[in-house]
C-alpha cells in the first residue's frame, strides 16, 4: 500500500528553520530520503517553493467560473511545504518512516493512504470497467509475450 506524507509547518516553524544553515537541512533531508530509497520504499517526493517568491496560486471553485487568486495564505495556519510517497506493508510502517523525518517543533506530517484500484471495486458497472469486459469477450489476441 502507498502512503503520502504531507508536510505541514506553521509560519513560525518555517521562520525558525531559517536560522539553521541550509546545507544542514539539505544533508538531513538527503540522508532521510536515502534511507527510504535504499529500503526500497520511497516512490517519490517533492518540496514546494517558498510562498514569499510569489510562486503560489489558489483556484477557488466556489465561484463559477473558478476564481484564480494569489491565495488567501494569511488565513492558513499550517503551510503545505512538500510531500513524500512511500510504498509500505502496513499503516504502522508508514508511521514509523514518517516519525524518522528530520523535522522540528511546529512541523507536522499528515500520513494519508493513497487510493488503489481495489478501492473502486464497487464501481464494476463503471463504463470504463464495462468497456474492458466487452473487449475481453471480443478479444482476439492471446499474446504469450505480452500478457
Amino acid at each position, binding site marked *: 500500500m502507498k502512503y503520502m506524507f504531507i508536510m505541514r509547518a506553521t509560519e513560525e516553524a518555517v521562520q525558525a528553520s531559517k536560522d539553521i544553515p541550509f546545507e544542514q537541512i539539505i544533508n538531513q533531508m538527503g540522508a532521510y530520503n536515502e534511507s527510504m530509497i535504499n529500503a526500497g520504499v520511497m516512490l517519490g517526493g517533492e518540496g514546494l517553493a517558498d510562498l514569499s517568491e510569489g510562486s503560489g496560486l489558489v483556484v477557488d471553485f466556489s465561484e463559477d467560473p473558478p476564481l484564480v487568486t494569489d491565495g488567501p495564505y494569511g488565513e492558513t495556519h499550517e503551510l503545505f511545504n512538500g510531500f513524500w510517497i512511500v510504498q509500505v506493508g502496513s499503516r504502522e*510502517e508508514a508511521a514509523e518512516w514518517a516519525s524518522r523525518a528530520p523535522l522540528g517543533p511546529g512541523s507536522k506530517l499528515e500520513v494519508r493512504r493513497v487510493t488503489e484500484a481495489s478501492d473502486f471495486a464497487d464501481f464494476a458497472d463503471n463504463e470504463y470497467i464495462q468497456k474492458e469486459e466487452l473487449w475481453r469477450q471480443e478479444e482476439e489476441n492471446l499474446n504469450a509475450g505480452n500478457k
Partner: protein
Amino acid sequence: MDQAAVPGRLDALWRIEGARIVAALARVTGDVGLAEDAAQDAVAEALAAWSRTGIPRNPGAWITAVAKRRAIDRWRRTELLQDRYQELARGAQDEAAPEWNPLPDDVLRLLFTACHPVLSTEAQVALTLRVVGSLRTDEIARLFLVPAATVQQRIVRARKTLAAARVPFEPPEPNEWTPRLRGVLHVIYLMFTEGYAATSGESWTRPDLAAEALRIGRILAGLVPRVPEAHALVALMEFSASRFAARTGPGGAPVLLADQDRTRWDRAQIERGRERLARADALSKELGRARGSYALQAAIAQCHATAVRADATDWPRIVLLYEALGRLSPGPVVELNRAVAVSMATGPEAALAVVNRLADEGALRGSHLLPSVRAELLARLGRTGEARAEFSAAAALARNLREREVLERRAAGL
C-alpha cells in the same frame, strides 16, 4: 506507551530494520540461521519488555544487543566444547555497539548468502523474502498460497544446506562475483514474475508478491549502484507493475495487453521505470558494455508502456529487441515472444513458421504458451478448426485457473 501498539510498532520496525539486524548478527556469528534465530529471540523479548517499559530510543540497537546475547546463549547450549565458537562468542561480547550503524555491505552479503547456488530456487526465494525482505513465515506462505509449515520447512532445510555446505557469510570471490550476482537478480526476477502472472492457483496476479520483489530489487540496486543490470531489472519490474490495475477485469479475469485500458496504467510508475532504464543505459555506456538481458526486456516493456494505443505499438522495434535478446540469452520463450512480435510487425504467416519450428524441436513441451500462440496465429489466418484444437490443447495445459478460462472461451468462441 500504549501497550496495544507495541506489536504493530515492532512489526514495522522489523520490516525496516530486520535485514540489517540479521546481517549484522550474521557478520559476527558467520551463520545466517543462528543470526535469524537469535534475532527472533530478541524480537520476542522486545515484545514483552517494551510492553512494560516503552519502546527504547534506538530500537534497532536494542534488538541487536539482545540478539547477540541470545546468539551466545545458543552457542553455549549447543557447541559448548568447541573452541571456535567460544572465541567467536568473546568477539561478539567485545563488540558492544553503542552506535547502531551496520554497513550496507552486510545486507549485500546476506542477499548473496540467501541466493547461494547450493540452495534450490524455492529455498532461495523463501530465504530471501525471510531474511532480506523481513517477512514472517506466515506472510511468505500467504504470498505463495502454500501452508506456513511448507515455508517453514523450506527455510529450515535451506539453513541446514547452507550449514552443511559451510557457506561462509562473505561476498563471493572476485571471479565468482558476476555469476553470483546474476543468481541474485534471477531470484528477484522469479519472485516478481510469479507475482505478475501466477503459474498456478485461482488468482491471475499477486501484486503483493510483485511489490516485495520490487522492494528487494530496489534495495539491491541501492547496494550495487554501479551495476547496470540491477537498475535494469528494477526498470523492467516498474514497467510491468505499472499495468497491474488494468490487467485484471471484473471477476478476476485476465485482461491482455492489447485490450487493457491504458488510462489505468500507473504513469508515475512508468516514469520511474524510464528513469531507471536511462540510468542503467548510461552506466552501461560508461562501462563500455552492451545492454544486458534485463535492459533489453525493460526496453521492450518500455515500448509497450509508452504506446498510447495498442495499435500504436512500435512492433518492428520490439522485433529487433527480441532478436538482440535471443542472441544474448537464446531460449524457446524468447523465440516465442519474438514470433508474437513478428506476427504484429509482419503478419501471422511469418510468425507461424517460427512457432512451427519451435514445435518441431519439441520446445516448451507441457506448457500452454506455445499452443496458445499457435492458436492465435491460426485463427488470424482463418484456419478455424486447427485454431480451436490448439486453444483446447493450450487450455488443458494451463495451470492457472483464470488463464485456462480465457483459453476455453477462445476455443468455444471460434
